[in-house]
């Protein structure tokens, strides 16, 4: 048992922290909020090898485990980075697991082309509100019992949204079928779990930073002649927030480890971590925003960026109520007839 990053992982974290500090400063995040994507930052990310880091070495990937991807995902959350790192990682692993010889693979490994996955059920020839759908070069979607890939030139237009995400509908006519039946369903289910677990990690990083922003403000702001951070009303809210975020940290990393080890618990823990992280990060962001008083509501202050993303990032998967029912079906026993 070892529940901290090891020395190699700490070194990786240092490298990527420097990357995000220089390429995803809050000014850059704000500058790219209409596109939902920072092209320059992605180009620099390509230089780090991150887009293909978690793909198998045999096909030219970095061969890193999902736990390494999680180190980057945590920073994506902390910096609310406008980069489709998680979608690209998950969708390219999915494609590589089913079609390792596909022509597109080398460009996905390098990051020269971006692939995403449709998380909403598809309708006819339509995948709705695809994460990174406005900027991706290719999209993987589950269409009936088929897993399809569309890599036509992307003409989809961004739909403006709560979290400045590059959401767009994608047409699937002309998409090629990559796999069908059980193989398609199982691989997609696995990819969906990976997305959930990595998103849970990212939301944890987001939540931790949201608490940090609020606490820093509370250590500077005076009212009634004292620092507002001295008020127990705020202290207790921050304490509850960080407790939720830390709980989310351990659960999401346990889910990542379970997926990496192909444990039977992987799917369940990924779903649980995702649901818990969604609430913990929103609670943390909402509390920090509240403690800013009126400034928290002002566009100029950064906490609103976190509050909006804490809601928007996980909602790309759809109503969490539906996800609770899916997890219930995974863990709860059925009725016993008397």
């Amino acid at each position: 048992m070892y529940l901290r990053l090891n020395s190699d992982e700490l070194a990786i974290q240092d490298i990527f922290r420097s990357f995000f500090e220089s390429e995803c400063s809050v000014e850059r995040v704000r500058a790219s909020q209409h596109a939902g994507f920072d092209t320059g930052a992605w180009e620099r990310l390509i230089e780090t090898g991150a887009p293909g880091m978690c793909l198998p070495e045999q096909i030219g990937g970095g061969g890193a485990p999902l736990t390494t991807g999680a180190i980057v995902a945590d920073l994506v959350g902390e910096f609310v980075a406008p980069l489709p790192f998680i979608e690209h990682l998950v969708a390219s692993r999915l494609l590589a697991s089913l079609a390792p010889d596909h022509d597109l693979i080398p460009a996905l490994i390098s990051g020269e082309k971006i692939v995403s996955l449709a998380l909403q059920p598809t309708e006819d020839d339509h995948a709705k509100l695809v994460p990174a759908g406005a900027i991706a070069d290719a999209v993987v979607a589950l269409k009936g019992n088929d897993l399809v890939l569309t890599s036509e030139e992307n003409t989809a237009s961004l739909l403006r949204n709560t979290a400045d995400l590059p959401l767009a509908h994608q047409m699937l006519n002309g998409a090629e079928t990559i796999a069908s039946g059980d193989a398609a369903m199982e691989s997609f289910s696995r990819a969906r779990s990976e997305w959930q677990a990595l998103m849970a990690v990212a939301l944890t990083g987001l939540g931790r930073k949201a608490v940090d922003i609020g606490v820093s403000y509370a250590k500077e702001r005076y009212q009634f002649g004292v620092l507002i951070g001295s008020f127990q009303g705020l202290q207790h809210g921050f304490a509850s927030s960080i407790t939720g975020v830390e709980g989310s940290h351990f659960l999401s990393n346990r889910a990542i480890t379970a997926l990496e080890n192909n444990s039977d618990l992987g799917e369940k823990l990924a779903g649980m971590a995702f649901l818990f992280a969604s609430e913990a990060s929103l609670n943390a962001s909402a509390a920090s925003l509240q403690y800013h008083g009126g400034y928290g509501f002002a566009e100029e202050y950064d906490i609103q960026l976190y509050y909006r993303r804490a809601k928007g990032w996980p909602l790309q998967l759809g109503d969490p109520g539906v996800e609770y029912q899916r997890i219930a079906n995974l863990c709860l026993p059925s009725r016993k007839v008397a």
Partner: protein
Amino acid sequence: MDWSFPPEAEEFRTEVQAFINEHLTDDVISSTHEGTIHNWDFHKKIADRGWLGGAVPSELGGGGKSALEMAVMVEELQLAGAPIDGMGVAIVVASVVLELGNDHLKETIVPKLLSGETLVSFGYTEPDSGSDVAAAQTRAVKDGDEWVINGQKMWTTMAHIADYVLLLTRTNTEVPKHKGLTFFIVPLETPGIEIQPVHTMGTERSNATFYDDVRIGDEWRIGDIDGGWEIMKAALKYERGIAGGQFPSPPLIDAFIDHAQTTERPDGSSIIDDPVVRERLVRALIDVEVCRGFAYNTAFLASEGVMFGVEGSMTKLFASESYKKHSKWFIDMAGTEGLLYLGEDEAPVGGLLDEHFRHAPVTTIYGGTSEITRNLIAEGLLGLPRTR
């Protein structure tokens, strides 16, 4: 991160599970429903396995169970709903005495504690000092070779079945409150001690204890005169990971699932099929997994020899607050029958829903209220100013 326990800890888990299957009978569990949260037979069986002594750190002469083995044991016993308060007390007091006690205490108390024959009640809290424990006013005054003790303690739980009380007293009123405290381990049969029951909403029995010119020899003192705060810190140190409190909800969730699976609503639908019930059960199961992450983190820190503080506070806060929430949900979802008391034939799962609902509020109070715990997290982890 490596979330796996070493093989010896997993083997020990299997051993503990087998022990639970054999010895944690319905009779043992129901015996605690009579108010006393301790079962001597079960406690003695744990002691007979050598697990109390095993939990005492090896550098103090204990049996050298590793921190991860202890974590596994405490997890399994909690998941099964075993009464382990006495176990925690025995391990903590034996460890403190072995580290800081004199030879008299080591010889008189430790063997009996670790063989499961005696218990020590904690005498910290007073009518006017709960969270502010260092404000204790129970006086100990030196008189020749003896000490004379006068005062009152609250929540001396298990004092009516224990032989000793670990008593926090004031020996100096001229110094800041933390610096004028002295601890004694007082035999409860000493003349001048009176034990009165305090019955709780949770149907447990605790006690108030009164000390009226209680005279004891200096050999019963533990730690330095006015050095009581060091004993308090040592007790807290050894309590970590042993005292439980990380998994209060699983016995309740298991009981409710059993009920929901087998019970129909008046309209003929099954409770377990209700989407609202299912969402709440998943939420509760997620909370348990979060508790597991916290508990494994503190076990990991203990295994690395790290003294942790705020990590334990977060575990305690999250586990007790979520348990209180669950106890409220599950009594609701059993309907009006959920109100029925232990022993009523129609009570769902034998009245456990009512019992958990009554018991849960104490868990966010004892061992540090949620409010004090949030203060500690705000100060210790977030660096916000101390306000007390």
